[in-house]
């Protein structure tokens, strides 16, 4: 049906309903964003700013710490998001089988991690992954490793730990989205496919995946944004340093350090934050491009 044209009174009512949100968003989101965009062209220390044109952007290209943070953030994104999405999908499909026993238990268990507080899980992980901790002990008893891994001291393993921790926390969250979407799919589609002799893997590949595409895209974009803004985990695992030797420093942590730890340089830190905006924009666009239905394009 054609979109109903509202009469004047209804139109005003519509504005009244959204007005509080719009005012707050304008004040605490849009205004700061515009300000930070302007700030990103300013140079100087503290509040002593002056217009610097593209000076900050030039500084980015010569700043080894920034490049390091950029690389780290990208590494986290490349490994963490796909692993988590695939795991979440697998669990969701497995749990969607109504003949499965203990479904409720499995679902709650896998979803439980996202109900913890950030600080709780980073502390728990830190203590579990201590050099003589329970994880290293278990791995050595299973003869998977010969000597304990320095999870927090080794640049490589520190990254692995961060990726494992985020995956642990957010897989169940994403799984719930897929489960909800799967339950909306008409079961008779699968029954028809079985009668047509379509094997299980093909039902997954050619029925489930295409029908879940919108949700997968949604969760991927949300996860991309989350990973590119990664701050909490890194800050807590490394006591805010991004160590060892900047190996887990992310862009958000660098922005925080530039603003509140070092001699504050608001202009430059604003520039770094806009790097994240641009990255999220590009990656989201690419994801939409990949997910776009080839037949309709």
């Amino acid at each position, binding site marked *: 049906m*054609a*979109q*109903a*044209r509202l*009469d004047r009174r209804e139109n005003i009512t519509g504005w009244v309903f959204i007005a509080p949100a719009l005012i707050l968003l304008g004040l605490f989101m849009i205004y700061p964003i515009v300000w930070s965009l302007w700030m990103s062209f300013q140079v100087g220390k503290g509040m002593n700013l002056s217009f610097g044109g593209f000076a900050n952007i030039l500084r980015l290209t010569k700043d080894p710490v920034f490049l390091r943070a950029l690389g780290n953030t990208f590494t986290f994104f490349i490994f963490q998001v796909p692993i988590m999405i695939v795991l979440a999908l697998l669990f969701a499909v497995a749990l969607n089988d109504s003949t499965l026993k203990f479904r409720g238990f499995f679902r709650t268990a896998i979803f439980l991690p996202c109900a913890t507080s950030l600080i709780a899980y980073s502390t728990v992980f830190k203590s579990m992954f201590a050099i003589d901790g329970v994880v290293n002990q278990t791995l050595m008893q299973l003869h998977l490793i010969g000597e304990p891994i320095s999870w927090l001291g080794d640049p490589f393993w520190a990254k692995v730990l961060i990726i494992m921790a985020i995956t642990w926390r957010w897989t169940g969250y994403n799984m719930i989205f897929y489960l909800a979407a799967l339950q909306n799919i008409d079961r008779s589609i699968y029954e028809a496919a079985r009668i047509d002799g379509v094997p299980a893997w093909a039902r997954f590949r050619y029925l489930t995946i295409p029908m879940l595409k919108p949700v997968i895209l949604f969760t991927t974009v949300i996860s991309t944004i989350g990973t590119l803004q990664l701050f909490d985990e890194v800050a807590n695992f490394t006591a805010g340093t991004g160590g060892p030797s900047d190996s887990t420093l992310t862009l958000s942590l660098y922005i925080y350090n530039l603003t509140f730890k070092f001699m504050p340089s608001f202009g430059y830190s604003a520039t770094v934050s806009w790097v994240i905006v641009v990255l999220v924009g590009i990656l989201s666009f690419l994801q939409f491009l990949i997910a776009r239905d080839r037949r309709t394009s």
Partner: protein
Amino acid sequence: MSSLKLTDVRKTYGKLEVIKGVNLEIKSKEFVVFVGPSGCGKSTLLRMIAGLEHITAGDLEIGGQRMNDVDPSKRGIAMVFQSYALYPHMTVRENMGFALRFAGVAKEQIARQVDDAARILALGPLLDRLPKQLSGGQRQRVAIGRAIVRNPQVFLFDEPLSNLDAELRVHMRIEIARLHKELQTTIIYVTHDQVEAMTLADTIVVLRDGIIEQVGAPLDLYDDPANQFVAGFIGSPQMNFLAAVVTEKTAAGTTVALPNHGGVRLTLPVTGGSVGDKVVLGVRAEHFGLPGAGDADLTLNIDVAEHLGSTSYVYANAGGEALVIEREESRHEASSETITVSISSGKAYLFDSKGARLR
């Protein structure tokens, strides 16, 4: 109880006009049914009367008062929705008394009115249940009860039976007819089902593309349709339409030939039309007679015969034209290949090429 008047009522969405000037007067206590194919504007028209859609142009009067800009709750109307629209978090009792609560009616008064309505609809034992604990038919009765409680001048029904199964639909149809007798109110009822329209209405309003095609009593529409659209829409099975050409005009009427049936001729007591015009001859399924009993005989090839016991429908064709014939005694015709039927000129209709009735 109140009369209702629509004067050149129009509705446009941007450039799209969906109600194109409706004039209609509804008498007090009348049961009026708006009927038409989907998209004809019947529901929009009802929602405009209810105040749920803005009236772009024209006037709406209820009980002699202009109601265009009056709030829905103050028009003296009550509405029963297709999906019943019961508030799922409230009991039947709360659902029925909800409007009165917001009209500032005293609690005891609300209770009394709800009880009265519940008695009329035999809802007493259900009053403390939630909608999800009721069957489809019970929900429908609660929706009607909610409307009754408000003691409206005009009841509006928006396809109220379309979510019920066939058996329940017949039952509720009878219940609504009984209710109208008992309450003596004006009812406007929207449906796409012409059987509902025929059985319930005092007056049927046939709508198409936002304009009224014909207004009249059910049997008047059936016996004397104003045009080919109404003739085809009212009646089941649908009226048969045969291609025809006017060949002669005499004092006795207009003579037409049927090219798909070997040019057989038939003279109708009609003055309209001129020689050479391409016209349409309309014949209802039950008006085909036995061979030789009418004014012209047609021989058709049988496709299928459906025997329902008391009657049979024979689907037949000739010259690419498919026809339905109703027969009361015709079980043997299943075995034969052809059927010969007659048309009586007094029981046939003539329409011009634009669908208007020739009289």
